Structures are given as C-alpha cells and as structure tokens.
C-alpha cells in the first residue's frame, strides 16, 4: 500500500500505512465482512428497481414494461441476486448488532455466526423463491 498516496500531494512524507487486505491470510469472518459491504453496495443500486416498480404500478403500460423486464431471465437473475443480497445483508446486520453488544467474539462463536449468516441467507433466499414461484404464481 506504499503507493497509496494521500491527498497531501507528491511531496508528502512516505509514512508507513497500516497493513491492509493483501497482508492477511483470508479468513471467513474477513471475507464475510467484504461480502457485507458488497451486498450493501448492490442493494444501494438495486433501489432503482424498487423505485421503478413502485412508480410503474400507476399505469398498465408502465407496469407491463416492468413485468416484462422482471420476468425475463436477466430480470429474474437480478431479482434473485437482489433477494440474496437483501437477506444476506440483513442477517449480517443482525450479526453486527450482536457484535455491537460485545457478545459473540469467541473463536467458535464468531465462526458459527458467519457460517449461520451464509447458510441462512442462501436457505431463506431459496425458500422465498420457492414460495414465490410455486405458491404465489411467480412474476408473471
């Protein structure tokens, strides 16, 4: 990270920076921290879809366009990814709220929490899609 100059300009002193990602051996907790940020960024831009859906419901033509997009394979793929990102970020948020209380930092506890986060998010996403597609009728 020595090349990561600050905004002070080229004449700024070459002070040592704290070690960053590439220094450490990858660990599950660390990877999940990164995934939490990535899913957050995904959800951020995904709100465009939410705003489009809400506003399209005002008229039949607009809603037909939205349904055509979300029903297409790319639309469904985005919606599936969005579902997972939402559930994963929510469960990750609960994990962070638990950590905020000072609990769950033991070696086994923290590993269990991140594993439950990952497994839980995949399971709930699949479950929601089964419910959506089979029992409610799908995006059509």
């Amino acid at each position, binding site marked *: 990270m020595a090349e990561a100059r600050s905004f002070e300009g080229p004449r700024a002193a070459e002070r040592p920076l704290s070690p960053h990602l590439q220094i450490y051996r990858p660990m599950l907790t660390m990877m999940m921290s990164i995934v939490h940020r990535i899913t*957050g960024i995904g959800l951020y831009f995904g709100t465009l879809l939410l*705003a489009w859906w*809400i*506003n399209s419901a*005002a008229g039949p033509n607009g809603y*037909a366009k939205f349904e055509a997009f979300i029903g297409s394979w790319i639309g469904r793929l985005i919606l599936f990814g969005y579902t997972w990102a939402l559930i994963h970020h*929510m469960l990750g*948020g609960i994990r962070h709220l638990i950590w905020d209380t000072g609990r769950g930092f033991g070696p086994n506890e923290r590993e269990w929490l991140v594993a439950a986060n990952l497994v839980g998010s995949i399971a709930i996403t699949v479950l929601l899609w089964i419910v*959506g597609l089979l029992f*409610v009728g799908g995006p059509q």
Partner: protein
Amino acid sequence: MTPPKHIRTPLARVRGFGAAKSGTGHFWLQRVTAIANIPLTIVAVIIMIMLLGRNQPAVAQILGSSTVAIIMLLFIVSIMAHMRIGMQVVIEDYVHDETAKLGLLIANNFFVAIVGLTAVYGILKLSFGL
C-alpha cells in the same frame, strides 16, 4: 486580559470533535436504521411476494392502501438513510483522491435524494389516487 494560548474557540473545545468534525451521529443513526430495517424489510418482502402475479390495478390498490403505503414509506425512508451513510463510509474508505471523493460524496447525496423521493412520490401517488 491575558491573550489566549491557542486559537481554538471554546465551542470547538467543548464539542471535542477535533479534526474529525463530527462525533458518533453517523454510527448511531446507522444502527438505529439497521434495527428499523429488520422488521420493515421482512414486512416489505412479504408485501412484494403477495403482490406477485397480480394485475396492475390490484397492485396499485394494495400498494396505495393506507397500511401498506405507510409501511412502504417507512421502509423507503429507513433504507435511504441507512444506505446513504453506508455508501459514504465506502467512499471515504476507498477513494483517496480528494476531488473524486468530494464529487462521489455529493453524487451519493443526489442519488439517495432522487431515488428516495421518486419512490416516496410513487407510493403517495398510488395512495392519493392521482
């Protein structure tokens, strides 16, 4: 009257923020909105699943009904406040060029304002039947 030993104003000293310029406001708001987002997201997802496959007039009517509209408005406001801070932290962590950072921080505010208000407008429009 003795001249002051430093040029920091008494107010700045009392606030105690130093070069950080702000305190735990963002930290706290991020957690408050996170807690609010949990039940709101669960209910919003249930609403979305229940609206699957329904035709446009039905979707418009349900989304615009008082209870659903209020829940959706709370959901939108809470996630917008949460994601604005989240994206700001990401920008501050990874963008080190001062000009680019400033531009992106402003763009973040614009994005949240435009998308958030558009979504709020959409709900209100359905609710008031305009």
